[in-house]
């Protein structure tokens, strides 16, 4: 614990990452109290103050129907973070299990599982998500499903490679010689040794899941109006560049901040947990 703090505080970038993500999470959780105009998250119209450049009390300006952009960003964060949690909560267990089984059992099972993984990995993620959304109707839930489907193979690949190398370790041999079951060896012996790498990847991925989800809604395939979403805000504002620059720049920066923050934390975590690259 002391060592973790030492490594964390030694590097100003880790402190920055932690601060950024901390602020984002706090703001998202307490958006109802922090946002200057909490009711602007919905379908509110205020034509007196529409399309305003940043000025008090609209720090980030207002959008085309007069809603405070800062408030909408805070609520959009709430949705992005939820989406990140749900996607990873679904994709990681699936990917980890597939990777463990393929890496440990080997043989035919390995072949089938890893080729399946390869198929998913070979399709460009956005194309996969877009074609899925083409079949289903665009909504937050379907967006999460689409991102989940394209995300698990990365964990399968990661855990597969880790398992392949852990399998050669003496403690696996020891458990096998004792007569432990395959399930025990996979989930109680090997998996705990993969956790640091998985956690590190999850932290970095959190930012990227948000990024991809934003890309989907940028294309109109994710969260639907009037629910605030960083991607759709950027998309909407892009039509009015460069005059109404605040419509795109602030949501865009908001995405950057969260992705960057999670990346920095991921790097710090990698060092703390001693994960090799």
């Amino acid at each position, binding site marked *: 614990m002391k060592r973790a703090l030492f490594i964390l505080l030694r590097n100003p970038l880790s402190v920055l990452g932690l601060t950024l993500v901390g602020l984002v999470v706090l703001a998202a959780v307490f958006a109802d109290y922090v946002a200057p105009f909490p009711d602007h998250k919905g379908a509110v119209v205020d034509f007196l103050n529409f399309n305003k450049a940043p000025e008090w009390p609209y720090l980030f300006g207002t959008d085309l129907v007069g809603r405070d952009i800062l408030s909408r960003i805070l609520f959009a964060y709430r949705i992005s973070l939820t989406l990140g949690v749900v996607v990873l909560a679904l994709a990681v267990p699936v990917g980890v299990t597939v990777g463990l089984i393929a890496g440990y059992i080997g043989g035919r099972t390995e072949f089938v599982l890893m080729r399946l993984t390869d198929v998913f990995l070979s399709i460009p993620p956005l194309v996969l998500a877009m074609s899925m959304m083409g079949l289903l109707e665009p909504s937050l839930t379907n967006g999460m499903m689409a991102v989940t489907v394209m995300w698990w193979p990365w964990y399968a690949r990661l855990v597969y490679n880790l398992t392949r190398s852990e399998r050669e370790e*003496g403690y696996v*041999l*020891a458990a096998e*010689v*004792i007569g432990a079951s395959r399930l025990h060896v996979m989930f*109680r012996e090997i998996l*705990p*040794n993969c956790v640091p790498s998985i956690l590190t990847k999850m932290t970095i991925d959190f930012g990227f899941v948000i990024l991809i989800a934003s890309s989907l809604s940028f294309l109109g395939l994710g969260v639907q109006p009037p629910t605030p979403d960083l991607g759709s805000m950027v998309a909407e504002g892009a039509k009015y560049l460069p005059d109404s620059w605040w419509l795109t720049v602030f949501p865009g920066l908001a995405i950057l901040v969260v992705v960057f923050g999670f990346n920095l934390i991921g790097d710090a975590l990698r060092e703390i947990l001693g994960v090799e690259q």
Partner: protein
Amino acid sequence: MKPLLQVIDVTKTFDAGGTPVRALDGVSFSVSAGECLAVVGESGSGKSTIANIVLGIYQPTSGALLFQDKELPDVRPLALKQAIQLVQQNPLSSLNPRRSVGASIRLALDVHAIGDRAGRKARVGELLEEVGLPADYASRSPAALSGGQRQRVAIARALACQSELLVLDEPTSALDVLVQARVLKLLADIRQARRLTYIFITHDLAVVRNIADRVAVFEKGRLVEIAPTADLFANPSHPYTRRLISAVPVTSRREAELRDRLQEPLDADL
């Protein structure tokens, strides 16, 4: 002495990119109950293959293994896994870094249903004490132990199975000299106390001289000589054995004299 394990004409070939490589070539020997047989050789001698075959990790290509006069099946039931256990060379890798020492030992008790649930915790403590560690080390992580202490834990784990035969695969090669001496002493004491049988695999002839009853010398997958330890060192009959002994870096004048005496006929060969 009744043989505990008989290895009968065992051959093992591996497929190395299309060309079969013979790791063991018609090897036969037996291990008596209660003895310590050293298996000696250099890399590529087949000594590790022997260990893996005895443990059932590899299947012999041909030949058979008899344990207590019964042939060992390809897929071993739990009872046979319990009877033959292993101590590996590298205590750094042989203990799971993410599990406590106690959990590693306890696994053996759980798998073989030794004792009831409450009794197992106490049993782990007893095993640790048997290998010279305090019982409360059970809660420690392997990272908090020294190399020698980790090797003791690995020994305790093997003992937990209540096996009859222990395969010791270079158990002290990764240890410092002082620690090695203590672990060797521990292994010798345990063998006596528990009437265990050891197959001691090593490249270190000086260790062999002091712990084994008999020595089997392997060269390129063949068993070239097997003899009681004192005889083998006093009068090695195979030139390879002689070459091995005379290559040992020794630490005293007495040993150097012994070695030089063995070297003379070797020079005469050339």
